[in-house]
């Protein structure tokens, strides 16, 4: 098979003076990364990749998707992921691979056989370069997904207002996913802090529909099962009227106009008088 011959020739070309070629490759790549990656790390990375590549060609021939190339693919995956995490651009990442072509650029003295081998290298490097970009963008997507989740977590601060009292202010348009996250976090914080009073403040919520109400009610029931009591505060007049028109019943759930009222109520319930608590705060200042 012709391609097989070319692979063998390529192995020979890349192995002869292998050290010189790797050195040139590393130097070229480090130039494009302008010192944002340690030379030592780059050196190790590319040397490993280079020997894997020669080995892949030797064992697996031109079929870079085959068994013989698994080491190369693994190393490239690692490289792309690291670059994506370290904030390198897709171009910077792929250039490292494409720079391999520079090592065997033909000139007028190049034999036909070596020229064929060079074209083979080109074909392989193109495929591996695209593989790198694909892995890179997959990793970026994973990173962005994780960040979105973190943001969701961050935007739902459950705070301990007092020993035994935790509160969560709900702000903005509530979709189902967000309400769910908030409620789970509230219940977890009740456990973590050993609190018996929870306040859910909805001053910042523009509308409460039956889905949001259902999440609220379920949370209150779950908190009760855990031996804690929930107060809902900040129900503004327009929300109150809407809830009534919808026919939602909050039953015996304690509701307060403001967060401050809810805190006073919660303090009384845990046996701390709000006045004593206020004095403690003043004393601490």
């Amino acid at each position, binding site marked *: 098979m012709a391609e097989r011959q070319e692979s063998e020739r390529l192995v020979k070309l890349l192995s002869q003076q292998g050290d010189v070629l790797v050195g040139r490759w590393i130097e070229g790549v480090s130039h494009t990364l302008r010192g944002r990656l340690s030379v030592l790390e780059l050196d190790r990375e590319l040397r490993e990749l280079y020997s894997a590549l020669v080995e892949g060609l030797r064992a697996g021939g031109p079929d870079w998707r085959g068994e013989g190339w698994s080491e190369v693919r693994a190393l490239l995956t690692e490289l792309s992921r690291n670059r994506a995490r370290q904030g390198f651009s897709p171009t910077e990442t792929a250039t490292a691979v494409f720079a391999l072509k520079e090592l065997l650029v033909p000139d007028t003295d190049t034999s036909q056989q070596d020229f064929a081998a060079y074209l083979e290298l080109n074909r392989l490097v193109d495929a591996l370069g695209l593989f790198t970009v694909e892995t890179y963008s997959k990793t970026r997507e994973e990173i962005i997904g994780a960040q979105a989740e973190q943001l969701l977590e961050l935007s739902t601060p459950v705070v301990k207002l007092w020993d035994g009292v935790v509160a969560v202010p709900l702000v903005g348009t509530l979709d189902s996913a967000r309400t769910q996250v908030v409620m789970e976090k509230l219940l977890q914080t009740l456990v973590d802090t050993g609190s018996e009073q929870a306040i859910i403040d909805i001053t910042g919520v*523009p509308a409460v529909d*039956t*889905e949001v109400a*259902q999440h609220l009610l379920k949370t209150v029931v779950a908190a009760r099962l855990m031996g804690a009591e929930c107060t809902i505060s900040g129900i503004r007049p*327009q*929300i109150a009227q809407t809830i009534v028109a*919808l*026919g939602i019943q909050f039953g015996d759930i304690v509701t307060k106009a403001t967060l401050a009222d809810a805190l006073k109520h919660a303090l009384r319930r845990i046996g701390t008088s709000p006045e004593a608590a206020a004095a403690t705060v003043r004393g601490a200042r």
Partner: protein
Amino acid sequence: MITAPAVPEGEQQTLPIASNDDVVRARQLVRTLAQQCKLSLVDQTKLVTAASELARNTLVHGNGGTMRVGLVDKGGRRGVSAVFQDTGPGIPDLELALTDGWTSGGGMGLGLSGARRLTDEFAIDTEVGRGTVVTVVKWTR
């Protein structure tokens, strides 16, 4: 004789309702129009909440569809009209579906009946196997 609720004519917008994000967008668009129309804060909230319920029904029970909204005018009185349309399974027993607390799933069963109470005009056109169209209007006072 019952007159059909005003449907948007002239300038109007149509939104797909195929995901939870679309329900949020639908709610935001209705709020913007309600503000433009200068509905009171209470009426804005009522209309937005009704739209939220109907959009979610379109998504959950109607397997997705569209919302068409626009400003309407009747004898100098302004209002916001919203039409929720799907080609889902339809509602076999409308009276039952409009009963407070009745749900075919795990909901509160207050969305449809609640939306009727929250708006000034409310109409349902539904056919089993064909789909459902719910039209609501909220007028300025």
